[in-house]
C-alpha cells in the first residue's frame, strides 16, 4: 500500500511542478525496461502508473513477442482417436492482455477496436500451409481458444484502478512461462468513443544468470555440452550409488 502512496505523491508532485504536463491527456510514469528470468522465476508483476487529464476510460494492451505455434487436431480412425492434421500458426503474439476500466465493447466502437487491435479473437495469425478460408477459420478459432485457456490471451476490466478521475494504477501479472523478447504496453485514453491519448512503452524479457549461461552453452556448443553433461550425469549416478555402497560393505 505504501508503494502506491509513493506513486501517488510522486505523480501528483510531478504534475504540480510542471503545469504544462497537466494539459497532456495522458501521462505515464516510466517503468523498468527489463525482466530477468532466473532460477526462482515463477512469473512477474508489471505495474503501469500514470495520470489522465480528466474523466475518461482507459485501455491497456500488453503484447508479447511473436511466436510460432504448431496446432494438431485429433481425428477418429475406427474406434481410435489419432493425431490427424497439423498446421503452423505464425506471426501471432505469444501473449495478449487487454485491460480496461470497463468492457472494451462498451467504450469503443468496433471500427476503433479493430484499428487498435483490441479484439482478442481478431489477432492476425497466419495459418501455414495456406488453407481455404473456412478451414483456416476453424484452426484460428482453436488457436484463440487454446491461448485463452492457457492464460496467454485474456481481457480484464477490473485490473485498472482509477483515483479521483486522474491517477490510475494497473497491476498486470505475467505467467512464469514467458516467451523471451520485447513486450509492448500500449495505454489508450478513451473519451466518448474516441481515443484521445496514447502512450507506448516497452520492456524486455530475457534469461539471466545461470539460466542464460546454460541456455547459451547448450545452443552454442551443443555437442560438447551434451557429451560433458551426459558424462557428468553418469558420474553422478555412479557416485551417488557407489559411495554409500562401499561404506556399508
Amino acid at each position, binding site marked *: 500500500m505504501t*508503494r502506491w502512496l*509513493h*506513486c501517488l505523491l*510522486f505523480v501528483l508532485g510531478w504534475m504540480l511542478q510542471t503545469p504544462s504536463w497537466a494539459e497532456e491527456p495522458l501521462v505515464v510514469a516510466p*517503468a*523498468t525496461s527489463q525482466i530477468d*528470468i532466473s*532460477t*526462482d*522465476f*515463477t512469473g*512477474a*508483476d*508489471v*505495474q*503501469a*502508473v500514470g495520470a489522465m487529464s480528466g474523466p475518461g476510460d482507459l485501455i491497456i494492451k500488453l503484447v508479447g513477442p511473436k511466436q*510460432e*505455434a*504448431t*496446432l*494438431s*487436431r*485429433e481425428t477418429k480412425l475406427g*474406434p*481410435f*482417436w*489419432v*493425431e490427424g492434421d*497439423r498446421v503452423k*500458426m505464425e506471426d501471432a503474439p505469444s501473449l495478449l492482455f487487454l485491460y480496461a476500466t470497463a468492457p472494451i465493447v462498451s467504450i469503443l466502437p468496433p471500427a476503433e477496436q479493430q484499428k487498435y487491435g483490441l479484439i482478442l479473437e481478431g489477432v492476425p495469425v497466419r495459418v501455414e500451409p495456406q488453407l481455404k478460408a473456412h478451414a483456416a477459420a476453424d*484452426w484460428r478459432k482453436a*488457436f484463440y481458444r*487454446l491461448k485463452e485457456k492457457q492464460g496467454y490471451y485474456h481481457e480484464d476490466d477490473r485490473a485498472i484502478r482509477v483515483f479521483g478521475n486522474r491517477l490510475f494504477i494497473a497491476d498486470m501479472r505475467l505467467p*512464469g*512461462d514467458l*516467451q*523471451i523478447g520485447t513486450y509492448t504496453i500500449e495505454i489508450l485514453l478513451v473519451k466518448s468513443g474516441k481515443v484521445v491519448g496514447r502512450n507506448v512503452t516497452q520492456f524486455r524479457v530475457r534469461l539471466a544468470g*545461470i*539460466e542464460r549461461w*546454460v*541456455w547459451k552453452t*547448450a545452443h552454442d556448443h*551443443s*555437442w560438447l*555440452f*551434451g557429451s560433458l*553433461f*551426459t558424462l557428468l*550425469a*553418469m558420474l*553422478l*549416478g*555412479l*557416485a*551417488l*550409488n*557407489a559411495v*554409500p*555402497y562401499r561404506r556399508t560393505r
Partner: protein
Amino acid sequence: MAIPFGPSLSNDEILMEFFLPIAHMDVNIVLILFYGALVGFLSGLVGVGGGFLITPLLIFTGIPPIVAVSSGSAQMAGTACGASYLHWRHGNIDFKMGLILLIGSWLGGGFGVYLAKVLLRAGQFGNVVVFLYVILLGFIGVSMLIESLRAVFRAGAPAARDAAATAASKSLLRTLVERLPWQTAFPASGVHMSVVGPLLLGAAVGILTSLMGVGGGFIMVPVMIYVLKMPTKIVVGTSLFQLLFTTAAVSVMQAGINHSVDPFLALLLIFGSVLGTKLGARIGARLPAEKLRLILALVVVAVAAKMVVTLVVPPGEIYDMTVEVR
C-alpha cells in the same frame, strides 16, 4: 524491488519452484524428485529404465515432449550407471551378452533414425509410435502377467516349477533360436545359444529407442527371460548395462542435434532416482524372481491400459498446441 513503478518478482513458493532453462518453464522440485524416485525404484527392482514411464509423466506436467524424451535419456544414463555398478558388484551382469546386445542396438538405432525420418516425412510418426507402444506393451504385459501369475501360484514347489518352466520353454521362438548358426556359450547366464538371437534382440531394441525414446528395457527384459531363458537377476543387470550405453549415446545426440537436454531437469531426476534405485535393488535382492516379474508385468499392463484409454475415450479438446521453445 527498489523501483516503484517497474515489474516486480513474486515471492510465492520460490523454494518449491525452479525455472528450467531448456524446457523454459518453472516446475515443482518435489514433484520432479518424486518422478525420479518412482522410476529409480522400478529400475532397481526389475531392470527397466523407466523411459516408457518418465516420458509421459513429464509431458503430462507440461514439459515439451522433445525435452522430456532427451532429459529422460540423460537421467537414464545416470541412473543406469549407478545401478549397473551395483549389479556388477553383485555379479549380475553378463558382459558377453551385454556387448552383443549393444552392437545390435547401435545398428538398430541407426536404422531406426532413418525409419523415423521416413515416417516424419509421411506425417505419421506420432501415430506409429502410439500404436507401437500399445501393441508391444499390451502383448508383453499380458503374456508376462499370465506367466508370472502361474509361477507365483506354483511357488510352493520350486523343483516342480523349474521342471514346468523347462517344459514350457519349447516355444516356437525358442526352437528357432536354437537352430540359428554361430552357437556359443554364455557362462555368466548359464545358457548356450546363437549370437544371432541377442544381436537381433539388440537391433529391435535399438529401433525402438530411436522411434519411441525409450531404453527398451521393457522389451528386452521379458525377451531375455522368456525366449533366451536367462536367469532373471542376470537379465536385470545385463539390461541395465546395455541401457547405460544406449541412453548415454541418445542423450549426447539429442543435446547435440536438438539442444533439448535440460541439465537441471535431468539432475533433479537423477537425485530422485538414486533413492528409488537403492530401495528397488534392495527389495529386488530379497524378492523371489516370479514376484519381480509379476510387478513388472503389472506396471507394463497398467501403462498399456492407460494408453488404450487415451486412444479410445473421445478427447475433450481435439486441438493441441505446441509452441517453439524460444
